[in-house]
């Protein structure tokens, strides 16, 4: 039951098209790498696929149906800057609880230490916060993960830790992943296939 973007086009206001007739399918248990220079619309595409933006043309389909509103979104989006994706006035425990009751096994698998849960976002490093965000995104109902440059700001060891945790989840539960990055070596390492942003669009 795939996640499918079919000829989606998006523009802000009345401006030029940012993405135009972009099509891409991600199957469960598959990691698709999306590569491209900055300014090509990778992030806009990620937001459209995850349902944060409505395309003016085309559709995003999950299991051949439109994404449902007002319920848990099985397509979860992760951002480049985790510190901008958490509430600065919530302790990590509350940040996680907003999404789901994260179990200890998940925390252990992602290398989240129990002592972090009582902390504020400004007391954790970028790599620690990104792991919290990953735990938050990997609820039991999550079927697809859109990872938009999620390790670009992190050191190599933390990057490898986070991606290995994601890949384990892909193997175990058939999570589908869209990995967006400008780093070709990383995508080659984590993705089953890599597509270029320019190649998935038609002008």
């Amino acid at each position, binding site marked *: 039951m795939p996640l499918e973007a079919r000829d989606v086009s998006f*523009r*802000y*206001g009345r*401006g*030029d098209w*940012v993405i135009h007739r972009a099509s891409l399918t991600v199957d469960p248990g598959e990691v698709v790498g999306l590569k491209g*220079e*900055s*300014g090509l*619309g990778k992030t806009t595409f990620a937001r459209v696929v995850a349902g944060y933006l409505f395309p003016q043309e085309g559709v995003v389909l999950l299991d051949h149906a439109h994404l449902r509103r007002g319920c848990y979104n099985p397509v979860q989006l992760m951002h*480049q800057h985790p510190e*901008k994706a958490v509430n600065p006035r919530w302790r990590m425990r509350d940040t996680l609880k907003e999404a789901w009751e994260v179990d200890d096994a998940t925390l252990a698998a992602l*290398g989240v*230490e129990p*002592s972090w849960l009582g902390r504020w976002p400004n*007391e*954790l*490093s*970028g*790599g*620690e916060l990104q792991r919290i965000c990953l735990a938050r995104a990997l609820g039991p109902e999550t079927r697809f993960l859109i990872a938009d440059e999620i390790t*670009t*700001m*992190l*050191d*190599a*060891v*933390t*990057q*490898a*830790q986070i*991606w*290995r945790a994601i890949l384990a989840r892909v193997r175990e539960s058939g999570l589908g992943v869209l990995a967006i990055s*400008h*780093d070709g*070596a*990383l995508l*080659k*390492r*984590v993705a089953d296939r890599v597509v270029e942003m320019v190649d998935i669009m038609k002008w």
Partner: protein
Amino acid sequence: MAVVNMDGEKERVLDRAPSLEVEESFSNTASISPEKSEPDSRSSKRESALLLEVRDLAISFTQYSKGLRQRTISPIVDLNLVAKRGEVVAVVGESGSGKSLLAHFIMGILPGNARVSGELYYDGLPLTRERVERLRGREIAFVPQSVQFLNPLMRVGAQVPVKGKKKREKEKELRDIFARYRLAKGTERKFPFQLSGGMARRVLLASATARGARLMVADEPTPGLDDAAVGEALGHLRELADEGRAVILITHDLEQALGMCDRVAVFYAGTTLEEAPASDFNGDGHDLRHPYTRALWMALPSNGFHAVPGNQPTPDSLPEGCLFSPRCDIATQICFSERPPKRELRGGWVRCHHAA
């Protein structure tokens, strides 16, 4: 595509709003114009390659945790760094390893509640608070991480401090320095939001070099840039070093840094674990001295993508012995009880009981 940029800019403006004050203070320090010149530093110009030395630095803060309860955190312990003329030294490490704090320390902009021990020498003399206030923005320049450090309400030309006295001299100087960074005529009349990310970054570089700085401290100058822009930004820093300046490049991206730096200082939990020549990063890392450096090298996607388990300790609960010991697979009894001292080894130095 124009609209993409417009919207990108808009987002950035929104992102900036909450922390505007902090960034303002940075841009101010970068453009401070000192009145007096510094005779002592010019005279010793040829004496040694060594320009800046940080010796056994420790920084701690006392914080209120809950009510009146206090706790002490130590984000920097036993940190050493040397910057030499004509060289780029890369400071690599994960976030929270003390990289940016070190930059703030060098620039003299630590918050007031910081307790500092250790020594800082610039050009052979202690770099005191008064001295750094005189030198920064002129001899010591800071290239900030983000283009948000430009004042959004000032034309960019006015944010580049040029030396000339008369108006015409100033204009000519400004045109020369903009031309050097391939900034088209008329750029100086623009506001930051009218520039692309790459152009804004070139303005920051122009601003940092305009007064002939001898030491450049660049704090993560590349994230968010595409490959071409990264190459250009790092190329400019390399050029500045080749002209005889000392460059400190702070980055989390080891691979990028290795392409252009001379030496690498590896930071971890606020300490320098190793300093190695860039050429030691090769093959399976057997030329490297510290197990963490090797782990960092072998974690690169092109080198095996190995992930050492565990996390960097937080500054309020540092281990008693070697800071890397909880994650180290060659750690023995001594590693858990004693911090290893810094020792010279094969053209670099290391803090490890077992390095050979």
